């Protein structure tokens, strides 16, 4: 696969933690950052798919807010409920 270079600015504390991890894992900075980025993107993708399904069911009225809380946690559930409410108002009221 063709590779490209990514430059990222990080604070000193994070850099030290990264160096410590490099020693324990006997890897390079690039390896650690690449692995962390890969894991983050994979989790985000998964979470996105889960949110997608749950938000649809909540919008359909097929699952309750309490169940959304159980599945996603309180903060994410509130966000889903907020989106559904804002979308409903946008579609019902237009710009009024």
């Amino acid at each position, binding site marked *: 696969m063709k590779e490209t270079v990514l430059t990222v600015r990080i604070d000193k504390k994070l850099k030290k933690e990264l160096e410590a991890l490099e020693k324990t894992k006997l890897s390079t900075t690039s390896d650690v950052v690449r692995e962390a980025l890969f894991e983050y993107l994979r989790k985000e993708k998964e979470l996105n798919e889960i949110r997608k399904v749950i938000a649809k069911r909540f919008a359909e009225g097929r699952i309750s807010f309490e169940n959304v809380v159980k599945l996603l946690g309180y903060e994410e559930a509130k966000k889903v409920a907020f989106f559904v409410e804002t979308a409903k108002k*946008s579609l019902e009221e237009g710009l009024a």
Partner: protein
Amino acid sequence: MIRVVIDTSALISLEVVEIMEKLFEIAEVIIPQAVEEEIIKLGRFRDEEGLAARRIAKFIEKKRIKVRRVKSGEKVARILSRNVNAGEAECFVCCLEQNVRTLIIDDVDAAYDLESISIASGIKLKLSAAVLVELYRKKLLSKKELRRKIRKLIKTRRWESNALETLCKKYLNQ
């Protein structure tokens, strides 16, 4: 005429479905400088959104979209958070300073963080889909066009796409 402030994500969504021209017929569109800067940055990309951003930049050049400088940097700084970037924070303060009551915003995370202060300030947060509904109500869009554009608009969303599709089906059938 309605006055609205629109954030970058919603501006892009609305221009991807080629609706800005029609929106100018019913609304005065205002953006803060931070949004103009974001639009210029997005215009460098060679994709559909980049193309939409370049068209929006032309509307700004022709002053069809009005750019306002936000006076209270302090207020902007107070609103900034992990989810609310400079563009969204300036949009909110722009609403307060320009006495605009509607903020069209498509970034759910940012809108969610802005919810409580928007209620306290009497500013309504709306999704870009509200613009399509308004144009339909004002007979500037046919029902067929509304459905087609909403379908395209839904594709610009992330996890919200399926929920929005469900709600659109429900409300458009009513």
